[in-house]
């Protein structure tokens, strides 16, 4: 029997959101070192060393697919963690499903990533849950009756969440209450035309379900165009780099996310402290989610009972084991898995305070 | 009926009138010269006949039908070939290929034949090469068939260009300054070559040339233009003694 377990990480080490890849990688490293230091992962009474292969998907959908294929075919990994962004997780999920390799995405929230894909799992809540959370919070906090949305067209996550939000908000505030629904393309840098349209429509707030790097540009440009109202963000804001890029412009804004590092307790705090000590900055959602996702995977491997020699067989057994995980206590909360294999868990809303810290505001559970 | 008839041909470039009211009629089998000072519009006339410009005004009738406005390759297909003031051979193709490619007006096979290497393709390809070799043979160029033009001396390049024009079996051949850049010995060869072509290929030749020895020996008739308009027309002797022509063109050769 093989003496090691090989797991692939399909993560964005370069490209639009490199910090996400970095945090995923660090979380993986931390977990691997911890387990290997203890002699390895025990499966059916035997210890296996963990071997994690980190592959860069450049934050591009097509690269995510080829990286997945490479991990599956060339590196012969047992399972894949990632991709994080739904933009990559949706297509890469297809590749894993087609090639019958288990995949678990830590942070993808778009339903399509796992939909009708028995081989694909995740550790994050879903956008059909997150969208209403954002809508409700904005209505309550800003007393909003109207909203505007600006989203990234080429990103499954952004587009999907924008649509879900729009449907939900209009259900609650009447048709037409989303007064502007604008999009932009890949690699765009100037959003002035869209923002001009949005500002002219006079919404009560602007919903931005976008990656943190784009958020920084959008928020600044909106302020240049005279916008003084609030923004509401979603989980893709949750990254330590948001504040370095966005600076003062983002302070005071709210976004929904998976966990709040500030004020964490128990295992969560332990993780945060260890990570901060090791890498010098506080881990954001993705590090915690990667930690959880990898742990779910390892738990399922242990649940398999034993590892055989046939990789195909092992992958199949692992998939079945993953599907049988019913509940998991992770550092991002307790998750119960539904029939689709998606976790049911709570979301939090955080405020970016004047020190640029993400401050816990509210927790919403399904 | 004349082979080529030009009626009141006029060509403007912006405000500049390069050719004005130019008329001529070439009978089959003639060897005619077109001379005139630099910038008189001679090349422009050739360009109009070969379809490179669309005339601002005027008629060009070849073998009884109008050719003004046709595409250059269509005009060539009807039997007018030309050479250029500055040699324009395809420098990366061998001499033989230069001649072969000029058979495009008469390929005899289609793209599909070429891709599938049909019988027809093979037959026609063979014919094209044989005919090309015949032309080269006739002009004593056969031994250069596999050379690329830049490797040939200037005089031979001129000859290859003439061979290429002949290969489309024209009934009218336009030569634009064939002797330019040739030395006296080469010029003598050229004169006899043109005479031979005129005889053996049974074609009409119309040529532009500044070297008087060439036109005076070759042409039976000369047309002189200046500022796009005809200033004289006649036999070489008449032209040589025409005071207008001497004043505008020939000058006096004492230096």
């Amino acid at each position, binding site marked *: 029997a093989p003496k090691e377990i090989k797991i692939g990480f399909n993560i964005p080490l370069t490209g639009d959101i490199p910090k996400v890849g970095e945090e995923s990688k660090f979380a993986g490293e931390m977990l691997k070192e911890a387990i290997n230091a203890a002699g390895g992962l025990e499966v059916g009474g035997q210890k296996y060393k963990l071997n994690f292969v980190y592959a860069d998907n450049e934050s591009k959908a097509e690269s995510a697919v080829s990286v997945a294929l490479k991990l599956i075919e060339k590196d012969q990994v047992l399972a894949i963690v990632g991709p994080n962004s739904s933009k990559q997780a949706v297509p890469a999920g297809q590749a894993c499903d087609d090639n019958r390799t288990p995949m678990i995405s830590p942070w993808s929230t778009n339903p399509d990533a796992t939909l009708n894909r028995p081989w694909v799992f995740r550790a994050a809540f879903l956008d059909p849950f997150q969208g209403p959370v954002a809508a409700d919070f904005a209505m309550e906090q800003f007393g909003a009756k109207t909203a505007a949305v600006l989203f990234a067209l080429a990103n499954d996550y952004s587009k999907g969440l924008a649509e879900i939000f729009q449907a939900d908000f209009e259900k609650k505030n009447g048709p037409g209450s989303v007064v502007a629904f604008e999009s932009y393309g890949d690699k765009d840098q100037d959003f002035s035309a869209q923002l001009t349209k949005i500002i002219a429509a006079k919404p009560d707030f602007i919903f931005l379900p976008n990656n943190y790097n784009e958020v920084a540009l959008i928020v600044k440009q909106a302020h240049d165009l005279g916008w003084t109202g609030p923004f509401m963000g979603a989980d893709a804001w949750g990254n330590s780099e948001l504040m370095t890029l966005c600076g003062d412009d983002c302070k005071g804004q709210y976004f929904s996310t998976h966990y709040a590092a500030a004020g964490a307790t128990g295992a969560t705090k332990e993780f945060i402290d260890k990570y901060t000590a090791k890498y010098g900055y506080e881990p954001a959602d993705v590090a915690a989610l990667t930690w959880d996702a990898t742990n779910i995977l390892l738990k399922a491997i242990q649940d398999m009972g034993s590892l055989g020699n046939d990789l195909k067989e092992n992958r199949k057994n692992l998939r079945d084991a993953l599907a049988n995980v019913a509940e998991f206590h992770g550092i991002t909360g307790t998750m119960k898995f539904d029939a689709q294999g998606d976790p049911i868990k709570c979301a939090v809303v955080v405020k970016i305070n004047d020190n640029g810290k993400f401050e816990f505001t509210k927790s919403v559970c399904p | 009926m004349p082979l080529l008839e030009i009626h009141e041909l006029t060509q403007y*470039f912006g405000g500049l009138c390069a050719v004005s009211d130019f008329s001529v009629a070439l009978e089959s089998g003639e060897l005619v010269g077109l*001379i*005139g*000072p*630099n*910038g*008189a519009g001679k*090349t422009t006339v050739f360009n109009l006949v070969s379809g490179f410009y669309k005339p601002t005004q005027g008629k060009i009738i070849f073998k009884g039908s109008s050719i003004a406005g046709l595409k250059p390759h269509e005009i060539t297909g009807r039997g007018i070939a030309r050479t250029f*003031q*500055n040699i324009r051979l395809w420098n990366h193709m061998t001499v033989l290929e230069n001649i072969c490619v000029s058979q495009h007006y008469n390929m005899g096979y289609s793209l599909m034949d070429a891709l599938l290497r049909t019988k027809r393709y093979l037959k026609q390809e063979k014919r094209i090469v044989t005919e090309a070799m015949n032309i080269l043979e006739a002009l004593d160029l056969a031994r250069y068939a596999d050379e690329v033009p830049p490797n040939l*001396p*200037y*005089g031979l390049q001129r000859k290859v260009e003439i061979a290429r024009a002949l290969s489309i079996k024209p009934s009218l051949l336009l030569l634009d*300054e064939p002797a*330019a*850049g*040739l*030395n*006296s*010995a*080469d*010029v*003598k060869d050229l004169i006899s070559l043109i005479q031979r072509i005129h005889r053996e290929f049974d074609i009409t030749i119309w040529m532009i040339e*500044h070297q*008087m*020895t060439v036109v005076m020996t070759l042409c039976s008739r000369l047309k002189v233009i200046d500022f796009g308009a005809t200033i004289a027309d006649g036999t070489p002797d008449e032209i040589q003694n025409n005071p207008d022509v001497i004043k*505008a*063109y*020939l*000058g*006096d*050769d*004492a*230096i």
Partner: protein
Amino acid sequence: MLLEIKDLYVRYGNIEALHGVSLTVDKGEAVTLIGANGAGKTTTLNTITRVPPPEGPKVSGGDILYNGESLLDIEAHTIVQKYKIALAPEGRHIFGNLTVEENLQLATYARKDTEAIKADYKRVYDLFPRLVERKKQRSESLSGGEQQMLAVGRALMTGCDFLLLDEPSMGLAPLLMYDMFRALKKLNQQGMTILLIEQNARLALQFAHRGYVMDTGEIVAHGTAKELSENPDVKKAYLGG
């Protein structure tokens, strides 16, 4: 001795184009270089003006002395600026996207002598009145002969005192050709040294004091114009019998 070429060997890549050419030009002389096509005449002139690669050839032996100074390590633009040697190249090489006037103006790039420049303009326009008419025209649309005039005019505008001409009569109508040679003669009489390549050997020998005959990269004969025009070999090969 103004220009002295000593045993010059020159190559293009692997092909040697000149095999030991030697010639001299004295101050105020008009010298002509005649020879068959491909003999290496153009190569000789291009080598003197140090035209850089890829067009320019490479010197592999011998020397070019100008007033006793070697030109071999001098850059092409310095040849014009400092040594005042100008070339009207074969094939004209006018700047087609500039107007006629700009072409002439450009030739004065490194000159500061405003007065002399003015005089030079006048000289060129007098020599080629056709250029005055075409002053504002983009020069690529000029007729072949007009372009030739521009090329010679441009060389004169550099304010040179040694003029190299590569087949200046190519494509010129007879009247103009004679006019130009008369004008060149006058320039020469005013002190301009001229080295001329010409296919029309009869005319060239009429014009020049001395001549060299080249064949396949070597000088095969030289002498005064009179000697050469009477030389039976030269007569047979280049003067048409």
